[in-house]
């Protein structure tokens, strides 16, 4: 009796320790989140001002805004999404609809998942080698190309996953009516998976809006903004790259701008992620 009480006590104790540690782990995560968002809000909000969106990035020691950086980021992201989405969509469609169990699909799936988690700085080096070196200068196109390479795997992965969720009965019904496979895909499965595919695109935008490393030596940076059509052919500022160079510099004004930019990026990314999640949930119900 004595022994079994001791054993019982030990087991209760071990369980108590386990439960406490698990709760502590969750608290650990939450405390960091609060710490990061808190720090970002304190330093970011005090630096926010309307001139952020109207003035160009300043030289050291003077005030200014982030307008050219925001513009550059938006422009390069738009090009990346416009180019990357169709490629990702078609590749994902190939994997899910045309050769689900094929050897090529197996390899593409494997390589795509590697690219999905591959270090983005390596993507920057790749674009530097294939675009910046032959062109002889940094450019907005190179930055957009680097972002495209990051967009594609995200869209491929979500497109394939979402198409796999479409019940086969729908495909069979459409095929039985005599629709060739491309009609089945365009008119039935893409439509059924539309919300999921949109989620993937939003996630891809969220992912690239914070990407810094691949832009450092592809788009480099620029202190002004030009509306000329050749703007993309010149070095182009982007929000993350500007934040990086301002934050690591010694000037107070620039550091404040970096914080404001950091807050902008975080809010953008969190809003996009939440939108993606809402879209996904809407689809499930």
């Amino acid at each position, binding site marked *: 009796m004595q022994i079994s009480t001791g054993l019982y006590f030990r087991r209760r104790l071990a369980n108590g320790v*386990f439960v406490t540690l*698990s709760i502590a782990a969750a608290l650990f995560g939450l405390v960091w989140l609060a710490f990061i968002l808190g720090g970002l809000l304190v330093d970011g909000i005090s630096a926010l001002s309307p001139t952020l969106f109207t003035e160009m990035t300043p030289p050291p020691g003077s005030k200014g805004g982030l307008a050219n950086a925001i513009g550059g980021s938006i422009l390069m992201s738009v090009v990346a999404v416009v180019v990357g989405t169709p490629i990702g969509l078609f590749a994902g469609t*190939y994997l899910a609809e045309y050769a689900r169990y094929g050897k090529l699909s197996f390899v593409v799936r494997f390589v795509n998942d590697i690219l999905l988690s591959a270090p983005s700085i390596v993507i920057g080096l790749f674009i530097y080698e294939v675009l910046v070196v032959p062109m002889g200068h940094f450019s907005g196109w190179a930055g957009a190309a680097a972002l495209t390479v990051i967009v594609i795997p995200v869209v491929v992965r979500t497109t394939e996953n979402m198409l796999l969720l479409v019940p086969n009965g729908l495909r069979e019904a459409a095929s039985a009516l005599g629709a060739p496979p491309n009609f089945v895909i365009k008119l039935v499965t893409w439509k059924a998976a539309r919300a999921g595919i949109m989620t993937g695109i939003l996630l891809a935008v*969220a992912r690239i809006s914070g990407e810094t490393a691949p832009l450092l030596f592809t788009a480099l940076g620029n202190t002004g903004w030009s509306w000329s059509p050749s703007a993309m052919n010149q070095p182009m500022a982007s929000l993350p790259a500007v934040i990086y160079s301002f934050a*690591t510099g010694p000037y107070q004004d620039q550091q404040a701008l970096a914080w404001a930019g950091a807050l902008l990026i975080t809010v953008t990314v969190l809003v996009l992620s939440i939108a993606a999640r809402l879209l996904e949930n809407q689809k499930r119900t």
Partner: protein
Amino acid sequence: MTDITLNESAALAERVATARSAGAGETRFRLMALSAAICVLVIFAGVIGSLIHGAMPSFKAFGLGFITTEAWRPTREIFGALGPIYGTLVTSAIAMIIAVPVGIGIAIFLTDLCPRILRRPIGIAIELLAGIPSLIYGIWGFFVFAPWFQAHVQEPVITALDGVPVLGSLFGGAPYGIGVFTAGLILSIMILPFISAVTRDVLETVPHVLKEAAYGLGSTSWEVMRKVCLPFCSTGVVGGAMLALGRALGETMAVTFVIGNAHRIEPSLFAPGTSISAAIANEFTEATSELYRSALIELGLLLFVITFIVLACAQLLLRRLEKAKGK
């Protein structure tokens, strides 16, 4: 009579034409899908090919000694990768040591212990940690976390451990705030959500019957988790951890801000160091000579090879799991 056959043959011709154009459309569509899929392979091959091409001058100049040399003197054109490789491995190891147990703890909390109402908000909050861009971790780590860490953790720890044999040198030196340990700690926060998300997914695949049977025998929550759930999920948890490791190895901006960018290997974890990705991000645009640039590209190639191996293992483990789940 003839009219009817004429009509019929015209209709037939029309139908054949429609079918042909539909067939052509089908071929075209199929080709587009196929070429998009091949495009993914081309990008991958391009990454490897361009890195190898770019790394050639450095490889010719230093050979395999590149990996074992610590000296990094751009002015004298001597480049050795040992410092960055050490930094990458050590920061990732610190991150894994912290993030694996905590990530599993969070997953267990969310699947088994958390009150139902709190499950969703806490789950989303943890996932937000994965959504915050690397750059933000960097700027926050540099301006907010490092000064705090320097004053409230490093100083007391260095004083307390001064003179203790191994720990004294591991956590010795001056409290800089930034350094290898700070980088590892911030990396651990960044990869936490990956580990907890995968662990949560696999914990949910444990059949309820197994858990109920164990509880029915009078097991405590801990015993059910330790002896039933975790053994059942071990493949998935290892796969998730490898995936997180792949992320940690290649993480750039967060590390660049807080690691200190010093090409040195010091016994103290609090000392500044550098990692492969931080060295590239920090020095690439300033690299003036062909050889300097090539050495940095060779670093990139090394990083890509290391992460490829880790991620490939993660893929294989998780694929196997998915197959098992499908059955």
